[in-house]
């Protein structure tokens, strides 16, 4: 039954968020055999629509004739109010039908602070939030994405977790569902059988026991169908794997409003703070031919005026020069701009950048991450001051005058001397600018220094590290504010309280589910949004539920502690992470694994042999 929302659309902000009829969206006839899948992004439309994974899976699923995949986003606060007032449940955009009657509700977990939105969306849909309370009549709630590698804080709310790259495994799950649905379906049997599919984790088939000190005793399967360790899935050949040839083009200006062309997966740099660099291993590239083919089709089907090469570290693509040249030669006449995010400055290809500037001018961003060489060695960011200075020198000589520098504060072992390094680097960048002749340099120097707060993440060499407490972080931020008062420098820093909450959930366990239920009851949502985030409320919720958040953030864990995600296997071994953690303490670098295998373990079992 299609819900009547037209009148509501006249009353809400940005009603185009809820239309569902954008270019290249699917509108299918539904019959008794249709498997209905709601791809759900627990944030507003503009954020969710910028997510490449959604575009891939949406089109992949809709290629299946009997599967109808639609999109669901968190309605903005004004829309939610309207929906609640008018008894409109959460609906899928394309059909405007309630998701409550769907077969699957699949949430992507991009950041921890979206967990309350997931619960809120379930509630808005009229679906019980706890997995055990959902009978056969309710959809199967599935999650995937980077935070799914430690899904324990939300384990009680979800039925299935997809670990790793979903293109193959999701079709295997759907196939099993289709087969069982044709006979005598029941959820319990379905979950038991799905548990034997590689990359599928069924939280309800595991039990967690705790020690007296609150740490985990063991995580054990309670069903013989459930494996001891659940392994993540990867796609072995990206050229042969599905990639959409058309993507949905929104009406609204979304965060990433362009064709996103994924050039490779994985990263070989091994930065020790970076979860993506560990969990997305091994490195796999797409060929230039395949990229060229996709580009042609995507530009023709969308009409986009910009294409962005997507990956964790664009300049590490081995044929970057070739693909950029191709894009320029082929599409410059059509004024298609090329943007290269995530460029590293140590192999910064200025010629290439200059080529791109011929078409469209883009900003320059560098991410030294830490201010001193010592600390950059600790985090294995193999980058020197000379690299940065050479790069900005070139950039200023070419007429740039806007530079962004990204740093992280409160990294393990950080002292105030390291913070002085941030000031030092920013000053040197400004000095470089003034060294260029007035006639040759761009006008109006702006050096934006941004400092985010380090959040220790699972499956990184820093997974055992404590996070700085809030007082220390404030002190460091204040210190930097004082240090970065020079003309030409703008200093931004992130709210430390959200980083604190993020740290709780990043390395959290199942005991946090009662905190989330309480947060839902008290109306917490959009916690990643400054204007909605209420730290004091969160603190009182922790207190009321008897959960100490510092247990998750402030503790130095020992290597032999059972971690909440120890039953999940991402291919990178714990031994490797310990080795890296030890090297970090000694500020020893690990080389890029393209030049020297660092023995992380990913090539044992997943691909077998070389990366």
């Amino acid at each position: 039954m299609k819900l009547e929302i037209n009148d509501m659309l006249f009353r809400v902000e940005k009603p185009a968020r809820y239309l569902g009829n954008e270019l290249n969206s699917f509108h299918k006839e539904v019959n008794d055999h249709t498997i209905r899948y709601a791809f759900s992004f627990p944030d507003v439309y503009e954020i969710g629509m910028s997510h490449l994974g959604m575009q891939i899976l949406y089109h992949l699923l809709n290629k299946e004739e009997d599967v109808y995949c639609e999109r669901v986003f968190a309605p903005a606060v004004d829309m939610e109010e309207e929906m609640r007032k008018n008894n409109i449940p959460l609906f899928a955009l394309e059909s405007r039908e309630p998701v409550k009657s769907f077969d699957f509700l699949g949430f992507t977990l991009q950041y921890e602070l979206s967990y309350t939105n997931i619960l809120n969306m379930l509630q808005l849909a009229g679906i019980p939030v706890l997995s055990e309370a959902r009978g056969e009549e309710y959809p199967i709630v599935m999650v995937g994405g980077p935070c799914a590698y430690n899904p324990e804080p939300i384990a009680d709310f979800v039925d299935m977790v997809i670990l790793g790259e979903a293109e193959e495994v999701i079709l295997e799950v759907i196939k099993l569902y289709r087969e069982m649905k044709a006979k005598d379906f029941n959820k319990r049997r379905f979950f038991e059988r799905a548990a034997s599919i590689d990359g599928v984790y069924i939280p309800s088939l595991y039990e967690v026991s705790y020690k007296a000190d609150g740490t985990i005793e063991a995580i054990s399967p309670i069903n013989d169908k459930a494996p001891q360790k659940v392994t993540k899935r990867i796609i072995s050949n990206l050229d042969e794997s599905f990639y959409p040839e058309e993507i949905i083009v929104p009406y609204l200006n979304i965060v990433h409003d362009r064709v996103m062309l994924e050039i490779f997966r994985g990263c070989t740099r091994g930065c020790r703070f970076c979860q993506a660099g560990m969990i997305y291993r091994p490195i796999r590239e797409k060929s230039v031919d395949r990229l060229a083919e996709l580009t042609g089709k995507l530009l023709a089907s969308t009409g986009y005026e910009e294409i962005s090469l997507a990956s964790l570290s664009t300049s590490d693509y081995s044929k970057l020069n070739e693909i950029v040249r191709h894009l320029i030669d082929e599409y410059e006449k059509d004024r298609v701009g090329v943007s290269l995010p995530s460029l590293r400055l140590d192999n910064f290809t200025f010629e290439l950048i200059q080529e791109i500037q011929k078409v469209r001018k883009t900003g320059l961003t560098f991410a030294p991450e830490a201010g001193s060489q010592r600390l950059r060695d600790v985090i294995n960011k193999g980058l020197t001051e000379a690299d940065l200075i050479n790069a900005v020198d070139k950039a200023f000589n070419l007429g740039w005058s806007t530079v962004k520098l990204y740093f992280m504060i409160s990294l393990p072992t950080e002292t105030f001397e390291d913070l002085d390094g941030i000031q030092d680097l920013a000053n040197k960048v400004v000095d470089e600018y003034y060294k260029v002749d007035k006639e040759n340099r761009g006008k109006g120097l702006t050096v934006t220094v941004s400092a985010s707060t380090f959040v220790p993440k699972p499956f990184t060499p820093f997974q055992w590290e404590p996070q700085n407490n809030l007082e220390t972080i404030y002190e460091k931020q204040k210190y930097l504010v004082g240090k970065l008062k020079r003309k030409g420098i703008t200093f931004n820093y992130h709210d430390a309280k959200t980083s604190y909450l993020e740290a709780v959930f990043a390395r959290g366990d199942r005991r946090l589910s009662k905190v989330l239920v309480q947060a839902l009851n008290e109306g917490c949502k959009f916690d990643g949004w400054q204007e909605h985030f209420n730290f004091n409320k969160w603190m009182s919720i922790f207190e009321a539920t008897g959960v100490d958040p510092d247990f998750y953030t402030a503790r130095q864990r020992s290597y032999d502690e059972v971690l909440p995600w120890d039953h999940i296997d991402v291919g990178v071994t714990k031994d490797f992470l310990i080795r890296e953690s030890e090297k970090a303490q000694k500020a020893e670098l690990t080389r890029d694994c393209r030049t020297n295998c660092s023995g992380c373990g990913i090539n044992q079992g997943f691909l077998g042999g070389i990366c």
Partner: protein
Amino acid sequence: MNRLRSRFYKKDDLVFISHLDLVRVFERAMRRGNIPISYTQGFNPHPIMAFATALGIGVSSEGEYIDIQLDERLSPEDFMQKLNSVLPEGLKIMQSAYIPSSEDSLMSLIKRSIYIVKGQVNVNVDRAELEDKIQEFLSLDEIIEIKEKKKKHKNDKPKFQETNIREGIYQFDILSYDNYDIIFKMNLAAGSEKNLKPEVVIKKLAEITKLPINLESVRVHRLELLKEQMGDLVSIMEGVKSI
């Protein structure tokens, strides 16, 4: 120079997209339809196109206009066919013709806008009373709308501007009235000199005459935009012959 002037409609779900969204829809449709649109020079090349007005979110229209400059000449029929095949449902080019490069911009041409406005009264009023109230409203010399001016800085004190909107109302009729539903027709000032939105007229009507109109129920549709030609007010496409 190949300057093409077109009339289009915007209706159904597409009324919910903003003017900026509409600009993007057109830009991308031009690309998908392989229409040889001209681009501005410089670092950030933009397709050369200009609209008559920015239609508010929620307003439908069958009297929207756009000027587009092309690098190559297509026949207007060919252009319309190509573009319409890639425009979303709810947007459609209805008429196109080449205009001289000396022709004034759409924005500077328009003088009036004709609207159909639907609304509901909360309690039933009889027709005669309704007519009387409107006459009473129109007989006023001054109808002052107070508008907050845009702040230059966030912390500026709010500034208000008073406008006599009576001068912008040229025609205001009831087309039908049936069972709480009223349909009005309005001819209002439009363009850069004077511009009046029908929602404001209805709001003022309710405020001054105490007619129990439910302001949330108001729906606006633009029928036509008019320009001045030899002292007459005529449709924008009037007198435009393909050159």
